[in-house]
């Protein structure tokens, strides 16, 4: 490409910037409008979750995981309690597993709605699709409020199950939501994914090839957008996912549009999963008999779930005490940022924002 070369300008995008999705900072060097270099700067929200976890007992850490990916607390809880259960050999009752899966999928819809809305906001749609998305997300948050009394920081799951059974309010509201949601998702798709301006802004922008995606270790919708059909719900079925029938949507070439479209499709799959769960669920206990102070045998385990952002894993090492010896979090948002430079170099400033938006980071998880 030829063009007028000008002096490079270094711009600090963030930590306070409307579309860095938190306190993320990018030090970008522009040549005119084109990105010639960039360096992500992290740590503005670092709270030392892993260190804090070493001084708390296994139940208390659930509250810490809420605050990592704060738009998808359920998935964090699920990933954590699954690791603890594996470490200490707790068997979870079936009803609890079903409710966990329903919650995780609801949370996935909520998180994807937020990602889609903010991506559209980054493209410049003046918050209209964002608010349509939030309208639906709000209903899911209302469901969570019925379930566990909180909307964002849920702390719903406990090692061994969940702390409280869902009552009839919840099931009725869930039925209504499941009936309405596909319609709204279709409308959202019609509003956005056929819009020529969105296509012009996102198609073939920030392509990440399949080999690169695996090499850079990205997971979740970004990996699937790059044609890699890899989903832990199918590849390594946890809870009761092997009893459910659902598809893994993949993208065409791994551009921003695919990342965005895969999320739209995944939401519809999640609706399917929830419908099946509602049909299959039976009455029963919701929590295994676990002591408050869990003392697992010395050992270590790594367990991961497919969170909305990608593979969310916990690596726990127990020394036989009441709190883990080491608690390492494989945070998908953090690792998904690795190919940032690969995706962004050579694109314009507007593309930088959309590519970053399509990765869908949450700074609570990036910095932990």
């Amino acid at each position: 490409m030829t063009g007028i070369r000008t002096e490079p300008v270094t711009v600090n995008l963030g930590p306070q910037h409307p579309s860095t999705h938190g306190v993320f900072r990018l030090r970008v060097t522009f040549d005119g409008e084109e990105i010639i270099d960039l360096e992500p700067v992290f740590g503005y929200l670092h709270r030392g979750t892993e260190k804090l976890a070493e001084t708390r007992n296994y139940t208390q850490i659930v509250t810490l995981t809420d605050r990592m990916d704060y738009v998808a607390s359920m998935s964090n809880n699920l990933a954590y309690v699954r690791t603890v259960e594996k470490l200490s050999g707790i068997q979870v009752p079936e009803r609890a597993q079903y409710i966990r899966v329903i919650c995780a999928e609801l949370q996935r819809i909520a998180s994807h709605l937020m990602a889609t809305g903010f991506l559209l906001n980054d493209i410049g749609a003046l918050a209209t699709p964002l608010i349509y998305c939030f309208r639906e997300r709000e209903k899911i948050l209302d469901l969570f409020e019925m379930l566990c009394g909180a909307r964002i920081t849920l702390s719903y799951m406990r090692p061994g199950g969940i702390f409280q059974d869902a009552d009839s309010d919840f099931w009725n509201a869930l039925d209504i939501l499941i009936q309405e949601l596909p319609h709204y998702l279709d409308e959202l798709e019609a509003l956005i994914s056929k819009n020529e301006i969105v296509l012009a802004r996102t198609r073939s922008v920030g392509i990440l090839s399949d080999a690169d995606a695996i090499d850079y270790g990205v997971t979740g919708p970004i990996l699937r957008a790059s044609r890699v059909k890899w989903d832990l719900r199918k590849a390594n079925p946890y809870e009761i996912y092997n009893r459910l029938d659902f598809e893994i949507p993949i993208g065409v070439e791994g551009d921003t549009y695919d990342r965005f479209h895969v999320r739209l499709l995944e939401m519809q799959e999640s609706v399917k999963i929830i419908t099946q769960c509602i049909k299959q669920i039976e009455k029963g206990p919701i929590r295994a008999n676990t002591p408050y102070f869990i003392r697992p045998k010395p050992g270590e385990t790594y367990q991961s779930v497919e969170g909305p952002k990608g593979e969310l894993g916990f690596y726990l090492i127990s020394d036989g005490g009441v709190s883990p010896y080491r608690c390492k979090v494989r945070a998908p948002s953090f690792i998904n940022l690795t190919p940032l430079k690969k995706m962004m170099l050579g694109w314009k400033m507007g593309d930088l924002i959309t590519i970053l938006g399509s990765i869908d980071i949450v700074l609570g998880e990036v910095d932990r």
Partner: protein
Amino acid sequence: MTEILDVSKIINEINKELPNCIVKNNDDSVWIRPDDIKKVCSILKNPQGLDFSFLTSISAVDYIGYFEIVYHLTSMRNNYSAIIKTKCYGRKNLALPSVIDIWKTADLQEREIWDLMGIQFQGHPNLKRILLWEGFDGHPLRKDYLGN
């Protein structure tokens, strides 16, 4: 279901090319000599061999006497996983070869380990503090870090 690959297969594969680099092993993980970690990783990544194309995560654990670096590997094509470990002894000037040439995903994770555990990765192009600021004193995830 992602299976954990039989350790003997990994040992065979490594021993074919690099004998004497395995320190010990148990049911699910293999301990490698720290100097050979890069070569072992490239053997494991080999698409014709075990094809561990995906590095799930790198973790560092401080066992007071030594540090253990844990590599969780996944093969996406064959759907199995493995755990490779290595030990670094001492508290100061710890160094380990970087695997960033083999898996690019090691970039941010190795930086994080350097930041929080203080293990240097040789060959990493941009080994700076990541979550804490430059000029921070100490490495807070170490067990002997007291803070201020």
